[in-house]
């Protein structure tokens, strides 16, 4: 163990290929004889297919084959998480076919796939397919889809309800607490639907090798093994050992590339059918229609306070939109990843969430950066801030008063919430206090008063959050309905010369694993980072792993690698003891050397590696080789937390809102690479600010996405954001060997309510006492909030 790299902002190893244009994303791969697929999609949200005429398309030049619903409609992709109704019934799980035979259920539902010599010809031929649709009424709003008479998405799902669900204290207890409240703050709001918009559109190549009867799928995925398992076992019925799934460089995921998509199975099937590789790359327009969306909650929430300002109860009713079909983890997001976070940082004694999960004629909804946790934080932080305004108390003071006291999870026990989870460790007061210090709170209020004399108004918004990261342990998620385990694999192969190949089931699509993991390995073994290679993304090379999502890679995947490293050091010590003629207990491993304690007798790590593979002088009963694989299944989630503060400036004449300052104090446990952690926070902040001010998928009454391109769907650009002001506190995770908690989603979870709260603060400071401005808070919406009612 040395401390050369951990905690240092080591520059990223992977950067070289990306900055020189040598990254290798799926769409960059060209295989001999490759064909191109184009998918014909429904222009309607809900319609019955009366007839399809393929004749003209089939006759067109360059067409190799056309896959139809008749041919492959009996295959469908599964949902990975079962949630039961309150009454114990199993959730409704209608099929999600690879291609639709009879009825389309959202705009973009796939009807046929044309495979041709070039992508131009495939598209030309798809345009020649004639489909006669009977257009049916559609419903897109979850709270309306449950009403009597609403159009049904699936004929056998009454009221479009996939399931209803609750969590927390018994409803009656919460009602009683609320009845006793001195003040109740209530809020109706929409947590709008977002499109993830990883910059790389999804891309897949199916390849079938008839000599070895083996399939290869190249896919822009966050978890190659999971895709292989789902596709083999639950979709196509292929023998898993005959399928190789490769996730090469992936251009961002943010959740949207976790799921098993129909097109992965389609190109795989088609490649066998025609005996040639088949590539499909979506257009951005298709991405808007088919990449799983995020959020989309319609909520009524109430928070009760006693006369001293202590929170006494929290009562929530939410309709969560699942879209037309269940995506891989769509059912877990509004339930186990959302309801379980409603304790927040507060000591709220009574909590109840009543959740209804609903099908609509829209794109499937699943995890998007934060997944359920941003929705929980938004709800809590909006309520607390609004309550402070309504009660005329300071929003920071109100939070500090209600925070759970600090606990380290080692000498003090974890904190048991009312919503199932037990927090591992936390020090919530400190992040808010540090945030206030960075803001210069008193000065800000003076500045705000000054600004009121101009045509700009200023506002400050606070948000404090907690999230559950490092998604695992298996036994817990299994008992909650997950149909997969959630652990990670880490194999460390020491080569005879002492160089290291590490195989991880985690998958990097921007997170920098090749660097962070190498830092951990190099320090543990006391060797240079150049001697470590991190290998991921290929199911033929890496043992079964679970991939990257939910800020889990380092906490779970990194811990698996540490376990293997420990085994290597333990075995190395035995080899060293034999060679140095002492007991293994007397061997100490430090700075890359096995040393006999208290002496200068030592052997280098390289010597031991070579001995392990050239075992001429070697302990009896010890196998040769130095290569260990470990699976790490943690005992709990990890619980990062933090405080985000936004300062906004609103143009009184136009409602145009600019984020002037953004302060984030996050506690993500121990930090291996501060530069990378900061980068993760920055990116999350941009997406969270994006939700508050810019982003939102809009449907018209017929279920058409009316802003389905970058000409209308607004994401923050460079000139929409300020430089971020970051700081960190460190409360180590008590239950994993690295003490890390995860940083991928924090920025996105805390930032959205901070910005909304800042706008509301600005509006109240100017005398406009509105409760909410609907997100995205476009200039027009903010301007309207300032007009006399």
């Amino acid at each position, binding site marked *: 163990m040395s401390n050369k790299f951990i905690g240092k902002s080591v520059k990223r190893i992977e950067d070289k290929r990306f900055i020189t244009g040598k990254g290798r994303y799926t769409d960059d791969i060209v295989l001999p004889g490759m064909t191109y697929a184009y998918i014909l999609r429904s222009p309607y949200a809900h319609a019955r297919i009366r007839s399809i005429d393929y004749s003209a398309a089939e006759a067109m030049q360059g067409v190799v084959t056309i896959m139809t619903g008749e041919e492959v409609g009996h295959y469908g992709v599964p949902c990975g998480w079962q949630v039961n109704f309150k009454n114990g019934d199993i959730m409704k799980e209608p099929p999600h076919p690879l291609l639709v035979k009879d009825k389309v259920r959202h705009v973009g539902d796939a009807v046929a796939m044309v495979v041709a010599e070039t992508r*131009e010809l495939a598209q030309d031929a798809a345009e020649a397919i004639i489909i006669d649709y009977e257009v049916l009424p559609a419903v897109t709003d979850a709270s309306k889809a449950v009403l009597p008479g609403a159009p049904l998405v699936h004929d056998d799902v009454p009221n479009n309800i996939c399931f209803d669900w609750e969590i927390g204290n018994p409803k009656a207890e919460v009602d009683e607490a609320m009845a006793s409240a001195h003040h109740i703050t209530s809020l109706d709001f929409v947590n709008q639907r977002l499109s993830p918009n990883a910059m790389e559109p999804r891309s897949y190549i199916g390849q079938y090798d008839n000599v070895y009867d083996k399939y290869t799928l190249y896919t822009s995925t966050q978890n190659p093994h999971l895709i292989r398992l789902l596709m083999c076992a639950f979709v196509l019925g292929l023998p898993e050992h005959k399928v190789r799934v490769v996730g090469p460089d992936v251009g961002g995921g943010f959740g949207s590339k976790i799921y098993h998509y129909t097109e992965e199975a389609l190109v795989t099937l088609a490649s066998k059918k025609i005996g040639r590789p088949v590539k499909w790359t979506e257009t951005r327009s298709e991405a808007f229609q088919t990449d799983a969306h995020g959020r989309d909650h319609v909520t009524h929430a109430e928070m009760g306070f006693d006369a001293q300002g202590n929170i006494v109860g929290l009562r929530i009713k939410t309709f969560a939109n699942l879209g037309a079909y269940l995506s891989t983890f769509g059912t877990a997001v509004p339930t186990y990843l959302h309801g379980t976070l409603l304790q927040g940082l507060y000591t709220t004694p009574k909590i109840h969430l009543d959740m209804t999960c609903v099908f609509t004629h829209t794109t499937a909804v699943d995890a998007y950066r934060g997944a359920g946790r941003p929705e929980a934080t938004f709800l809590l932080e909006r309520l607390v801030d609004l309550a402070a305004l309504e009660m005329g108390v300071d929003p920071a003071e109100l939070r500090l008063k209600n925070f759970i006291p600090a606990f380290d999870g080692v000498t003090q026990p974890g904190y048991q919430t009312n919503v199932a989870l037990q927090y591992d460790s936390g020090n919530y007061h400190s992040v808010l206090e540090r945030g206030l210090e960075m803001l210069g709170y008193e000065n800000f209020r003076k500045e705000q008063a000054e600004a009121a004399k101009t045509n700009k108004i200023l506002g400050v918004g606070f948000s404090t959050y907690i999230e559950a990261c490092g998604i695992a342990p298996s036994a817990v998620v299994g008992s909650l309905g997950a149909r997969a385990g959630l652990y990670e694999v880490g194999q460390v192969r020491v080569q005879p010369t002492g160089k290291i190949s590490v195989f991880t089931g985690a998958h990097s699509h921007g997170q920098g694993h090749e660097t962070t993991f190498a830092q951990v390995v190099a320090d543990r073994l006391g060797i240079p980072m150049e001697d470590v290679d991190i290998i991921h993304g290929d199911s033929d090379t890496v043992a079964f792993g679970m991939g990257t999502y939910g800020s889990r890679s380092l906490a779970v995947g990194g811990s698996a690698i540490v376990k293997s490293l420990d085994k290597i050091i333990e075995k190395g010590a035995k080899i060293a003891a034999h060679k140095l003629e002492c007991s293994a207990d007397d061997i100490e491993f430090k700075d890359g050397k096995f040393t006999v304690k208290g002496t200068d007798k030592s052997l280098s790590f390289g010597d031991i590696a070579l001995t392990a593979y050239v075992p001429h002088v070697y302990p009896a009963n010890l196998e040769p080789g130095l290569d260990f694989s470990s699976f790490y299944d943690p005992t709990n989630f990890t619980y990062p937390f933090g405080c985000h503060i936004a300062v906004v400036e609103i143009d009184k004449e136009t409602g145009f809102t600019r984020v002037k300052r953004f302060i984030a104090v996050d506690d993500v446990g121990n930090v291996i690479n501060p530069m990378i952690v900061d980068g993760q926070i920055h990116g999350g902040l941009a997406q969270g600010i994006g939700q508050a001010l810019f982003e939102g998928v809009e449907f018209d009454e017929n279920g058409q996405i009316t802003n389905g391109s970058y000409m209308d*769907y*607004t994401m923050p650009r460079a000139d929409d954001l300020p430089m971020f002001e970051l700081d960190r506190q460190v409360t180590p995770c008590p239950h994993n060997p690295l003490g890390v908690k995860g940083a991928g989603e924090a920025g996105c979870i805390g930032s959205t309510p901070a910005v909304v709260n800042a706008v509301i603060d600005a509006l109240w400071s100017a005398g406009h006492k509105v409760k909410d401005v609907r997100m995205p808070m476009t*200039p027009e919406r903010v301007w309207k909030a300032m007009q006399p009612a």
Partner: protein
Amino acid sequence: MIPSSVDYTRASSVGEAIRLLAENPDAKLLAGGHSLIPAMKLRLNSPALLIDIARIAELRFIEDTENAIVIGAASTHADIITNQYLKGLTAMIEAGELIGDTQVRNMGTLGGSIAHADPSADWPAVLLALEAQIKVQGADGERIIPAAEFFTGFFSTALDSGEIVTEIHLPKAAVGSASAYRKFMQPASRFAIVGCAASVTVEGGVISAANVAFTGVSDAAFLDEGVASALIGKSATLENIEAAASAAAEGDMHINEDHFASQAYRKHLAKVYAKRALAGACGL
């Protein structure tokens, strides 16, 4: 996204382009291509032939003549905002800098933009405010169309189907006159939700002439006579400007609406941006 099949040819002169256009009824002119090619990629438009006029040397120049600055139609937005002769026409520079982004400004052309006549494009408002003259050429020869007669409606112009825009003549700013362009952007596309170009002549502290033109507000860019007339004879103060600007986008006209701005909000923005553009032109 790939366009439908299309033939491509490059014209070497204006004459050749006009001849090709006459011979091919399904042809479209291609200058920078930054309106046409995106539309073709989405297959919103599938011409049979593209006639590339971007490299016609006689169309790409900026000249300082006695009465006017003359801009060749194939001059790019970037050519314009970096040109020394145009420094005096502030609205041109301010508008040009707000078009699209760096990459678009490097390819897109002034002629292409005005022939396309997007109702939210920036140039039309500026050309109206600056009283530009647009020279066009067709099989029957050349003619000059004043900007005020050029933009006839929604994506439509006074250009005949066989004609090409060749030059834009911008009268030189008179003594005491100045111009400005202010724009409220659609945040995703960066087109104007409301763009206002103002040109004002102040003599002895009194406004003697004014043009106020909008883009993004209605079917096409237009001169707002109501605002302009309310300014004439008034001293150039913020109060007078604000009062005049309150007349903006009134009267019988269609007001656009979309995700980003309802009709009421757009109308309100027109008044705010008229004020800001006028204040800019008056140096207030």
